[in-house]
């Protein structure tokens, strides 16, 4: 679709063309949203099973334990425990967060916020979703295999992930599933990057784009470059498992020849560290916009925030070694990686300060999207600062593979991204479905999530600092960890609370979509000026009747020169000057 010929197509009429095999970016965005929420529930249940085992080793899981593990009387068995933490990580990262933050918001927001009628390659967009469906199906099927699903950790290090460590087809299906997921992500990335470069409305310079688009666009660049790196590692590991190659088998694990298990770690983390930013950049972008919208003033240091996000994107490609300090790499390398990792804190500090600057003296409206955005500011602050400990070689040698690491990356990758995802969902829901979610329930959802969430991840960091290692079925067989049992119980109660609270969100979400007598959303319920709010809610299938002409930035709020009673300007309006 050329920019110059963005025709208005007929609206699809049948259920299949409208909701299943749809080319419409908005429908595909919603498909990704439902897909992500489904996997969020699956991954969340797995988290609760893990937490229960750590709080009450050997005690049956309440209510559904007997149904899930009839052979052990409802107790999570050790091999299943390994499978659970592997699948929990995999599902949350690739099948929950990625579809929601990148698939749903990327698809829904990019054309609407840059003033286009659709993505540049709608068919590729649809294929991207169906590839991810196939990928998710493969992963779920692997749960039903006789020897179970993959159990080598979400990082799938050899030798744990070779046929020696993981016999059975579960690990192979995991590899194929992730390969398909990679193909889906790459298709999406090609589409997003090209759409942003070539379909921006007239006047929409890069520095007039909302920061949400900056975040998603930079994420897509990282996706296009680094997901294929994981693809290469997955192919080689598949070859080791299926065709008898020996890339990663060494020592007693190899029947003949010699491979190098650490080679996989290099490949994995060359992808894996940028992956952290792949997940978090869209959330940062969304939060940067929402803080400005609901502080009713322009984003402080907009350009510097965009450039900081770009600097982080670039730096994220050269720091992967900090995940491998304990692999006996040379001190010169560890110090180089440490310095580069520390360097990332500089652009991070810049945009974090800009967030605070945006809030400063703002006329803050504490709506649900704003509350969740403020939540991101808080949890990312904690997650970011604790990252500095792990960047330092000497401290990391002690903290490596402890629950401190688990707490840290959950603060950054899970808490920040989850809260950012909720902020985005509450914010764009009216434009997606044409109805307003219940604000009261949304605010209860926020507080009831935020409090236990911090209980969980702070608790994890404390137990990690005390030396408790991750991935142990029963860490309390060691005497020094036994006094951590009460803390583990506390974390588990917090996790159960947080899990149950999500039903408030689900109720609010589905009731608003399918319920009767729900108030309809106006075209601009939040009173902001980006392009998607210039059209009716829900967005019509063609998006814009006329392609808009952009005349000002995305955060023109609180302008004292405005005289018509509103405190914001649409991007299609000339900037009002004194």
């Amino acid at each position, binding site marked *: 679709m050329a920019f110059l010929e963005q025709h208005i197509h007929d609206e699809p009429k049948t259920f299949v063309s409208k909701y299943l095999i749809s080319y419409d970016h908005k429908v595909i965005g919603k498909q990704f949203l439902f897909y992500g929420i489904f996997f969020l529930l699956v991954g969340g249940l797995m988290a609760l099973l893990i937490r229960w085992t750590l709080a009450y080793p050997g005690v049956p899981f309440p209510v559904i334990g007997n149904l899930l593990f009839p052979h052990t009387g409802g107790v999570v068995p050790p091999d299943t425990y390994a499978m659970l933490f592997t699948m929990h990580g995999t599902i949350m990262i690739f099948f929950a967060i990625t579809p929601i933050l990148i698939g749903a918001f990327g698809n829904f927001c990019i054309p609407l916020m840059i003033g286009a009628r659709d993505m540049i390659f709608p068919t590729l967009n649809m294929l991207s979703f169906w590839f991810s469906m196939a990928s998710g199906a493969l992963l779920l099927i692997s749960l039903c295999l006789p020897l179970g699903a993959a159990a080598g950790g979400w990082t799938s290090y050899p030798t744990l992930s070779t046929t020696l460590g993981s016999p059975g087809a579960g690990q192979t299906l995991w590899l194929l599933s992730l390969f398909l997921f990679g193909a889906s992500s790459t298709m999406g990335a*090609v589409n997003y990057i090209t759409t942003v470069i070539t379909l921006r409305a007239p006047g929409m310079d890069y520095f007039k784009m909302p920061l949400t688009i900056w975040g998603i666009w930079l994420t897509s660049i990282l996706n296009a470059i680094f997901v294929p790196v994981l693809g290469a590692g997955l192919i080689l590991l598949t070859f080791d498992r299926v065709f008898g190659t020996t890339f990663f088998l060494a020592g007693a694990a190899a*029947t003949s020849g010699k491979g190098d298990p650490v080679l996989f770690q290099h490949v994995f983390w060359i992808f894996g560290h940028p992956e952290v930013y792949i997940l978090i950049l869209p959330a940062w972008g969304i939060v940067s916009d929402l803080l400005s919208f609901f502080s009713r003033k322009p984003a402080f240091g907009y350009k510097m925030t965009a450039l900081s996000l770009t600097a982080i994107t670039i730096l994220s490609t050269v720091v992967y070694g900090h995940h491998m300090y304990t692999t006996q790499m040379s001190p010169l390398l560890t110090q180089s990686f440490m310095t580069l990792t520390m360097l990332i804190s500089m652009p991070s500090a810049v945009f974090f300060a800009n967030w605070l600057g945006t809030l400063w003296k703002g006329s803050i409206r504490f709506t649900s999207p704003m509350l969740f955005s403020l939540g991101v500011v808080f949890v990312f602050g904690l997650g970011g600062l604790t990252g500095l400990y792990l960047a330092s070689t000497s401290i990391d040698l002690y903290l490596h593979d402890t629950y401190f690491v688990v707490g840290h990356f959950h603060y950054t990758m899970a808490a920040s991204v989850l809260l950012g995802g909720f902020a985005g969902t509450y914010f764009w829901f009216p434009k997606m479905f044409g109805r307003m979610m219940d604000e009261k329930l949304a605010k209860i959802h926020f507080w009831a999530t935020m409090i236990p969430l911090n209980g969980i991840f702070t608790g994890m960091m404390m137990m990690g600092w005390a030396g408790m290692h991750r991935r142990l079925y029963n860490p309390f067989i060691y005497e020094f960890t036994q006094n951590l049992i009460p803390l583990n119980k506390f974390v588990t109660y917090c996790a159960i609370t947080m899990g149950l609270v999500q039903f408030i969100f689900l109720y609010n979400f589905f009731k608003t979509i399918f319920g009767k007598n729900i108030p309809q959303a106006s075209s601009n319920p939040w009173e902001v000026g980006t392009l998607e709010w210039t059209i009716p809610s829900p967005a019509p299938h063609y998006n814009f009747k006329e392609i808009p002409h952009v005349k000002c930035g995305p955060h023109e709020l609180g302008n004292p020169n405005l005289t018509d009673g509103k405190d914001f300007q649409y991007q299609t309006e000339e900037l009002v000057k004194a």
Partner: protein
Amino acid sequence: MATKAQIQEEKVFQNSVAMTVTLIAFGMMFATLFLGYFLVRANAAVWPPVEIQNMPKLLPFLSTLVMGLSSLTYFKMEKSESQRSLYWSLTFALGIVFLVLQWILWAALKEKGILVSNGNVPSMVIAFTWIHAAHILLGLIALLWLGKFVLKKKEELTVIKLMNVGKFWHFLGVIWLLIYLMMFVL
């Protein structure tokens, strides 16, 4: 109102961007494989290791020649409208010949005792050629699709179709050249 030429020019630009991103993605996958190879080679006490000392020389050279020729015929196909069908057929045939040569190469490697189970260096030689051949297969499917327009629906053949398939095909040629130089020559 935009003219047809303006729309065409814009579409070429859009497809160039998309294809560049796509090739960067494919390139990164191969770059990772090469990085692994470099790491192994840099850490080897002796090079070439005993597992690959009898590597065939002629077959990979012939493959390189065939791949180079196919790129040349593709280039001619893009330029010569009158003989497009001929050059398309030649490119496609050379692609098939390349795959046949690869098959013979794998048989020769097996005969010389260079097996995937003998360590990561022979694994790399064989697996990298497998992966490249799988991409050649994709390239041949793309060529077949292009053939539909070259041979039958000529009015639907666009510069963009020729350009996109061509970029992918030439890219695979470059990748093969790198594999050949790194694994069979240097």
